[in-house]
C-alpha cells in the first residue's frame, strides 16, 4: 500500500475511497498495522478489536461496491473514547469499577456515526471517569505523548489525542468537561473541538459533570472536526438538554473566508497575565496573533474579570454533579462487585476498591459542597459565580467575534511531574471557562515549542457560534498549516 495513512484526514480518505484508490479494509489495515507497531510505546487504546474493525470495514466496502454507501465517509475509522457506550462493547471509563460491563445500548452519537458508515475503531484510554488532565489517572495503563514518550498526552481524552497524533487512526471522539478535548489536542499537536453545550447529545456519554460535559471530535484538521460535528449534532429524543437542530452544515463553506477583514479577535488580558504561562508558549501566542493580524483581523483587548475564579467554580460545580453521577457505581446492577455479607460493606468495599484516588478526591469534594450546612456557601455560590463568568463572555462578545487564548500554560509535562492535585487542576485554567459558560471552543495546532513539543491556540466562540468559529479556525490553519511545523507530514 503506497498511501501513507498517518496524516490522512477524513475528507482526503473520502476522496480516496470514492476514487477506489483504497478500500476501507486496506485503510483500516494500514492503521491497525501502525497501531500494532506503536501501541507498545504509546498505549493509546484500551481495546482494539481487529475482528470488529475489519467486519465493519468489509461491510463498508460491500456497500460501496453495490453503490449503497451510507455517506461519503462510509468506511473511515474513528476511535471512541472509553466513556461513550457502544452496544456489545465494554465501557470502563478507564475504571476498575466498570470492569466486565458490556453495554446493551449505543450512545446517540454512535448511532449517528453508524448511520454514516464510519468504522468504530477501538476504545481509547482516558483519565478515570474523565477526571484528570494527563491521562495518568487511568486505572489500566499510562498513555504516552507520541512526541515524547516520557511526557503525558494530556487528558482526559489523552488516548484519543495520542492515537490521532500518532497516526493510529483517522480521527477520534473525545469528551470535554473542563478542557478534556482541547488540552490533550494541544499537547499532542492535533485539532480538538468542543461545541456549544447541548449541540451534541450526551445520551450514552458516561456523565462526569452533566451541565458541563460535551462530546466532540479530535482530528488532524479543522475540516475533519466540522465533518464529524455535522454527523453528530442535533436534537435527541433521549437527551432533554439537547438543543434544537439548526439545519446547518459546519463543513459547508468552511473555507469561504478569504481573509479576516472585519473580524475582531478578543484578547482577554487576564489570560495573558496568568502566572504559570510558559514563555515559549507566550511567544507562540504572539506569533499566532501576528498571523491573525496579517489576515486583516482586528485584535481587541477584552476583559474576563472573573477568570481567576473559574477553576475554583469548576471544582465546586463539576465535583458536586460528579458525586451524584458516580453514585450509581456500586456493584449492585453491573460492574465489579466486591462480594461481602453485608449491604453497607458491599457499597463501601466495592467503591473503595473500584475507584482511583483522583475519583475519590472529587467525589468527596463534591459530596462535601452539597452537604447540609455547606450547600449555600459552596454550591450556590459556585453557580452564581458561573453566572458572572457567562456574563463576562457575553460582554466580551459585544466587542469581538471570537476570543483567543492559550490552551495550556505549558507544553506536555512529564509523567508524575504534577503530583499535587491542585497543580493539576490549574493546568485547565484556560479551557475551563468555556465549559462553565457553555460556549464553543477549539484548539488548533499553532507551532512547535523550543523544547520540541507542540503548542495549540484556543479560539472560543459565543453560544451557537460554531460556524464562524470553525471558519476562522480554518483560515488560521490554512495560513499556519501543520505540515510547516509538524515533522513527518
Amino acid at each position: 500500500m503506497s498511501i501513507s495513512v498517518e496524516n490522512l484526514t477524513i475528507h482526503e480518505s473520502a476522496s480516496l475511497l470514492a476514487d477506489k484508490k483504497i478500500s476501507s479494509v486496506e485503510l483500516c489495515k494500514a492503521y491497525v498495522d501502525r497501531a500494532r507497531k506503536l501501541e507498545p510505546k504509546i498505549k493509546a487504546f484500551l481495546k482494539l478489536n481487529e475482528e470488529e474493525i475489519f467486519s465493519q470495514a468489509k461491510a463498508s466496502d460491500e456497500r460501496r461496491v453495490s453503490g449503497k454507501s451510507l455517506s461519503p465517509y462510509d468506511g473511515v475509522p474513528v476511535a471512541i473514547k472509553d466513556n461513550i457506550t457502544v452496544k456489545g462493547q465494554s465501557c470502563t471509563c478507564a475504571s476498575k469499577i466498570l470492569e466486565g460491563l458490556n453495554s446493551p445500548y449505543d450512545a446517540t452519537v454512535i448511532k449517528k456515526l453508524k448511520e454514516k458508515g464510519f468504522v468504530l475503531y477501538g476504545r481509547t484510554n482516558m483519565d478515570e471517569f474523565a477526571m484528570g488532565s494527563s491521562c495518568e489517572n487511568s486505572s489500566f495503563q499510562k498513555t504516552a505523548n507520541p512526541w515524547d514518550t516520557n511526557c503525558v498526552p494530556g487528558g482526559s481524552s489523552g488516548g484519543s489525542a495520542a492515537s490521532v497524533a500518532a497516526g493510529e487512526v483517522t480521527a477520534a471522539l473525545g469528551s470535554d468537561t473542563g478542557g478534556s478535548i482541547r488540552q490533550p489536542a494541544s499537547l499532542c499537536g492535533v485539532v480538538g473541538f468542543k461545541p456549544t453545550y447541548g449541540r451534541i447529545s450526551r445520551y450514552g456519554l458516561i456523565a462526569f459533570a452533566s451541565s458541563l460535559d460535551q462530546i466532540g471530535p479530535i482530528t488532524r484538521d479543522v475540516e475533519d472536526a466540522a465533518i464529524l460535528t455535522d454527523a453528530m449534532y442535533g436534537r435527541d429524543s433521549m437527551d432533554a438538554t439537547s438543543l434544537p437542530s439548526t439545519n446547518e452544515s459546519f463543513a459547508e463553506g468552511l473555507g469561504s473566508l478569504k481573509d479576516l477583514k472585519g473580524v475582531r479577535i478578543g484578547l482577554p488580558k487576564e489570560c495573558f497575565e496568568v502566572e504559570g504561562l510558559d514563555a515559549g508558549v507566550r511567544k507562540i501566542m504572539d506569533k499566532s496573533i501576528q498571523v491573525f493580524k496579517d489576515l486583516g483581523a482586528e485584535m481587541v483587548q477584552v476583559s474576563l474579570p472573573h477568570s481567576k475564579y473559574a477553576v475554583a467554580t469548576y471544582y465546586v460545580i463539576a465535583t458536586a454533579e460528579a458525586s451524584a453521577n458516580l453514585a450509581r457505581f456500586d456493584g449492585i446492577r453491573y460492574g465489579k462487585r466486591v462480594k461481602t455479607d453485608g449491604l453497607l460493606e458491599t457499597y463501601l468495599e466495592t467503591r473503595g476498591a473500584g475507584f482511583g484516588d483522583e475519583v475519590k478526591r472529587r467525589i468527596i469534594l463534591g459530596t462535601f459542597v452539597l452537604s447540609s450546612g455547606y450547600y449555600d456557601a459552596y454550591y450556590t455560590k459556585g453557580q452564581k459565580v458561573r453566572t458572572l463568568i457567562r456574563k463576562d463572555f457575553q460582554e466580551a462578545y459585544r466587542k469581538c467575534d471570537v476570543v483567543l487564548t492559550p490552551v495550556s500554560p505549558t507544553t506536555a509535562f512529564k509523567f508524575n511531574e504534577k503530583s499535587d492535585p491542585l497543580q493539576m487542576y490549574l493546568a485547565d485554567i484556560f479551557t475551563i471557562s468555556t465549559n462553565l459558560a457553555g460556549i464553543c471552543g477549539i484548539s488548533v495546532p499553532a507551532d512547535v515549542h523550543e523544547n520540541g513539543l507542540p503548542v495549540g491556540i484556543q479560539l472560543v466562540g459565543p453560544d451557537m457560534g460554531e460556524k464562524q468559529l470553525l471558519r476562522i479556525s480554518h483560515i488560521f490553519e490554512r495560513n499556519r498549516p501543520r505540515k510547516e511545523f509538524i515533522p513527518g507530514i
Partner: protein
Amino acid sequence: MSKYDVVIGLEVHVQVRTDSKMFCSCPNRFGQEPNTMVCPVCMGLPGVMPYPNREAVRKTVMAGLMCGCEIAKFSKFDRKSYFYPDMPKNYQISQYDLPLCGKGKLHVCGKGFSGAELPDKSIGITRIHLEEDVGKLNHFAGYSGIDFNRAGVPLMEIVSEPDMSSADEAYAYLTSLKQIMQYADISDCDMEKGQMRCDVNISLKLAGAKEFGTKVEIKNLNSFRSAHRSIEHEIIRQAEVLDAGGKITQETRGWTDDRGETYLLRSKESAHDYRYFPEPDLLPMTFSDEDIAKIKSQLPELPEQKRERFVATLGLTPYDAQVLTLDKTLSDYFDEGAKLAKSPKMLANWIITELLRELNDRNIPFENNPVPVSHLVELVELVSGGTITGKSAKEVFSELFAGGKTPKQIVSEKGLVQISDDSAIEKFVITAIEQNPTQVKQYKEGKTAVMQFFVGQVMKQSKGKANPQIVNKLLREKLDQC
C-alpha cells in the same frame, strides 16, 4: 385522652396512572414478571438520561387543582441522594424547593370510620410534588432480590399540614384523597397494589400547649384501616409514656396488623442529608395562566360538587350522597340510574340498603357488581308501581345477582306479580279466618297484635304475592264482621 392534643400529619405517595414511566418509555404496568419492564434508563446504567413524562406532570397539576393548590409558575426537578439497592442511580429524581403544587386543602366531614361524627373541617395540604418510584425488594433467607419494574414509575407525594387530630380524621382524609385521585383518573389508589402508600407523623402535646411534641413516624401501612388502628394504638402508647413522666424519642416505627402494635424500625438521631441540588439533566417547567386554565377545564366534577348536586337536585339526603360518592364507579352508576329512574331517592335507597350490603356480604368489590343499573331501576319501578311486593322484590334482587335476566323476566318466570285483586285476596282472608278460630277469638278479645298472624297466613296462601295494603284492609273488615 383529652389531657393531650393529638397532632397528625400524613405523607401520602400515589402512583400516577400513565402509559409509560416517568423518565423513560418503559410501560407503567403492575404485576408483570420481575425485571421485564426495564430499560437502561430506569435501571441506571452508565450514560443514560431521564426524559420527563408530560402526562404525569399534567395529572399532578390536576391533582393540585382538585385540592385547591396553588400551581407553581416555575417548577423544577432535583436530585435526592441516598444509597439503597432499590435506587438504580442512588439518587432519586424528585422535587425539593419548587414543587409543582403548593398550598391547598381537603375537606372532611360526616361519619368517621369509628362511627363518631367528624367535625366539619379542612385539612391543609402543604405541597404536592412529582418524583420517580423505586424498585421492589424481595426478602429471602440471608439475601434479597431486586425487581426494577416499579423503578421509574411516576409518583406523586402529597404532604399534609399537621392538621388532623384523630384516627378518624386521618382515615377521612385518606378517603377524600382516594376519591379525588379516582375521580380524575389519576390513580386507583389500590394500596394492595402499592398504588397508594401512607406514612403517618404523629405527636402529642398537652391540651392547649403551643409547642408541638416530638413526632413519631409510622411506616409500612398497607390499608386505611391499618392507618386508623396504628394511630389509635400510637396515641395510647405515647400517652402512656408521657403519663409516666417519660419522653417520646423521635423515631420511625412500623405497624403489624397481626400484633396490633407499632414497633421500632429505627431511631432518627440525625436527619438524612439528601444533598438536594437541581437536576442538571432536566429543564425547568413553567406554567402560564392559560396553561393552568386549560388543565382546569379538563377537571371532572369533584366528589363534593357531586354530593351537593345529589342533595339539591335529586332529593338525596347528605348521608345518601356521602355513601354514593365514596367510589367513582359507584357514583357514576347512580348518576346513570338517576337519569332513568322516576325516583332517584328510591334508587339510592335500594343501592345503599340492598346492593351495597349484598356485595359486601358476598365480598364482591363494587367494580365487579353484576347488576346493571338499568335492571335495578326496573326493579325499583316494579315495586313502586305496585306490580310486586317488597318481599318479592328481594327475591328478584337475589336472582339479579346470578345475572342474565331482567327483573321483568324474573317476575314473569316466577309468577311474582302482586295479587291486587280484591276478590282473590278476599278468598284467602276468608280461608285464614275460617281455619284459625282461636286467633279470631284472641283478636275479638282485643289482642290486635294477632293481626300479624293473620297477615302471615294470607301471605303464606298467596305465596307472598298478595298486596299487603289490601290484605290488611280486607282482614280488618272481615275480622270486624266476625
